[in-house]
C-alpha cells in the first residue's frame, strides 16, 4: 500500500509526440518530455503559444496517444485505462467548448456525472449531491437555472469548472481556465482552484499565461519551450529574467511588492 502513496497522479516518461499530416512531414510538438505530478499538487504549465501545452494535457486525458514514451495516470498507462474509468478520475476543462442551447446549467453540470451513471434513465441521490457540491465549489449555485446564452464570460467559465468538478476527478486538467476573464475573475477562479486542491486533494495541472498569477497560486511551475521542458520547480527559482527572455522572448524584471512578493514587471 505504500506504493499507492508514492504513485504519481500523472506522469510522462520520454514522451515524443507529432501530429500526423496528410502529404507532409509530421509536425513534432513534444520532444522527450519527462514530468511527474505527485497526488495533491497544484502545478501551473507555462510556455509560449505552440510550445505543446494543450497537447501535453490531451496526452494525459487520453485524447491523444504519445508517439513514443509513456503517459500514465495514477500509476497506469493512459491507454490501458478503460474510457469510463479514466473519465471518473480525470476531468478536463478545455480551451473551447460548446455549451448546447436549451439545457439549464444544472443539467449541463449533471452531464459531468455521466461517467458515474449507474441508472439507465435517471440520476441517483449521489448524483444530485455531487451536482450541488460542484455548483457550490465553482461558485455557480446562483446560475443553476440559467441557460448558456444567458451567461457572461466569467459565469460560463464557472459553469465549465462545475461540470469538471461534477466528475469528481482526482486529476483536473485545465487549459487556460482564465481565458476571457477579467483580472478579478482570474484571481477568484484561481483562489477557488487552490481551495479545491487543498480541501479535496485534487491534483491540478493548469495552463496559465500570466506568470505572476501562476507564481502567486502554484507552488510549482513547469515551463515548456518548443516541446521540451525548459524549467520545472518553484516559481521564484525557476522564473528568472534569463529564462523568461529565452522562452517568451520578452524582458521581465523582478520587482518586490510592498507585501514582499516577487513579481515580474514587463519591460517594453
Amino acid at each position, binding site marked *: 500500500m505504500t506504493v499507492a502513496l508514492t504513485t504519481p497522479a500523472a506522469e510522462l516518461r520520454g514522451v515524443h509526440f507529432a501530429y500526423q499530416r496528410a502529404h507532409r512531414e509530421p509536425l513534432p510538438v513534444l520532444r522527450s518530455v519527462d514530468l511527474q505530478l505527485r497526488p495533491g499538487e497544484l502545478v501551473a504549465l507555462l510556455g509560449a503559444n505552440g510550445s505543446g501545452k494543450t497537447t501535453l494535457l490531451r496526452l494525459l486525458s*487520453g*485524447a491523444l496517444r504519445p508517439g513514443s514514451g509513456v503517459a500514465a495516470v495514477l500509476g497506469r498507462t493512459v491507454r490501458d485505462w478503460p474510457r469510463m474509468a479514466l*473519465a*471518473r478520475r480525470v*476531468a478536463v476543462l478545455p480551451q473551447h467548448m460548446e455549451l448546447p442551447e436549451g439545457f439549464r446549467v444544472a443539467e449541463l453540470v*449533471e452531464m459531468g456525472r455521466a461517467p458515474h*451513471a449507474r441508472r439507465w434513465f435517471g440520476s441517483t441521490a449521489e448524483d444530485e449531491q455531487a451536482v450541488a457540491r460542484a455548483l457550490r465549489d465553482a*461558485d455557480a*449555485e446562483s446560475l443553476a437555472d440559467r441557460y448558456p446564452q444567458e451567461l457572461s464570460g466569467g459565469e460560463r467559465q464557472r459553469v465549465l469548472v462545475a461540470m469538471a468538478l461534477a*466528475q469528481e476527478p482526482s486529476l483536473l486538467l485545465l487549459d487556460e481556465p482564465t481565458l476571457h476573464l477579467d483580472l478579478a475573475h482570474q484571481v477568484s477562479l484561481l483562489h477557488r482552484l487552490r481551495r479545491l486542491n487543498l480541501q479535496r486533494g485534487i491534483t491540478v495541472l493548469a495552463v496559465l499565461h500570466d506568470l505572476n498569477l501562476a507564481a502567486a497560486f502554484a507552488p510549482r511551475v513547469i515551463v515548456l519551450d518548443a516541446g521540451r521542458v525548459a524549467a520545472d520547480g518553484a516559481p521564484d527559482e525557476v522564473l528568472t529574467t534569463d529564462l523568461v527572455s529565452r522562452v517568451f522572448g520578452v524582458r521581465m524584471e523582478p520587482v518586490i511588492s510592498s507585501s514582499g512578493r516577487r513579481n515580474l514587471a514587463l519591460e517594453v
Partner: protein
Amino acid sequence: MRTALATGEAARPIRIGLSLTRALVVLGGGGLLLMAVVVVAVGIGSTPVSIGDTAAILGHRLLGLPIAQTWPASAETIILDIRLPRVLTAMLVGGGLAMAGTVFQALLRNPLADPYVIGTAAGASFGAALGIAAPLAVPSLAIGAGSSLLGLGVVQLLAFAGGLGTVLLVYAVARSAGRVQVVTLLLTGYAVSSVLAAMVALLMFLSGRALGAIFSWLMGSLANASWPALTFAAPLLLASFVLLLARWRRINLLLLGDAQAGSLGVDVEREKLVLTLLATLATSAAVAVSGTIGFVGLVVPHLLRLVIGPDHRLLLPASMLGGAILLVVADLGARVVPGGGIPVGVVTALIGAPFFLWLLRRSRLSRIELDR
C-alpha cells in the same frame, strides 16, 4: 449564496434530471393522441365506418376484447386488410423518420439535418428507380421482378439496400485516420447524393413508360402499404427505436463536442458510427415501404426541441410519437383528397415548407436577439 446561507434563507434545491410529471404529460398525452388519430384514420375513407365500429373492430380483433359483432363483415375487411396496415405503416414510418432526424441533428450538430442528409434518400431512390426501370428496359429481368423476399418486392428491397449501402459508402469515404469529421461527412453525403440524383434523373429520362412510377415513388406514398411489407419494416424500426433510445445519454454528451464527450468517457468515433447505422437502418426501412417522404424528419424534432427542450431522454420518444401522429394525419389528408388521393409526400411538404420558413425566420430573429 454565502450571504443567503448566513441569513438563514433556505437554499433552493437544485433541479436535475427529468421531471416525471413532464415526461408523463408529454409521452402520455402524445400516446393518447396517437391512439386517437389511429382510430380516426382507420375509420375515415371512401367507405365510411363509424368511430364506434372502428374502435370495436380494433378492440375485438387486435386486443381480443369480448365485443359482440354488430358491424358488417365488409367493414372488418376494409379496416383490417386495407386501412390498418396503411395507418400502422404511416405511424411507424413517421416515428422512424422523426427519430432518425433527431439523431442526425444531434450527431451532425446541425439543425437543418434530416434523416436523408448523408445519402439515404439518394441511394434508396436510385435503388428503387433501378428496380422500376430495369425490368421494363430489359425484358429478361422482368421474370424476377414479380418475385418477393421477406414480403418485399424487388423495388422495395433495392430501395432498402440502396439507402443503407450509400450511407456505408459515404461513411467509409468520409473516414480518415480512424476519424469521421462532421463537416466531411455532410459534404461527402452531399457529393455522393448528387451523383446518385443525377443517375436517377438519367434513369427517369431514359425510362419512358416507368417515368410515372419512378416519380410517384420519389414523392413518397403509403398507397402500397401491406401487412407483408409492414412485417419487414416494423421489426427494423422498432429495434432501432429501442437501441437509439438506450443511447440518450451519449447523444446528449455528443452535443458538447467530440473532445468533451470523449473526456466524459464516450467512445466518440464508435458512437458516431453506431448512431449513424441505427438511424440509417430506421430510415432505409421506412423509405423501402413508403418512398422518400420529406419534412417529417426535419420538422418534428425541431418543433419538439423548441417545445420540450433538447434532452434526448424525452426528445427521442417524443419525436417518435410526434412523427407518427403527423404522418398518420398527413396520410389521412392525402387519402381523402377528392379524385383518388395524392402522394403523402406532397402533403408533408405542403405543411412542412411553410413551417420551415417560419423556423428560419424565428432562428434569424433569435440570432439578432443574441447579437444585441
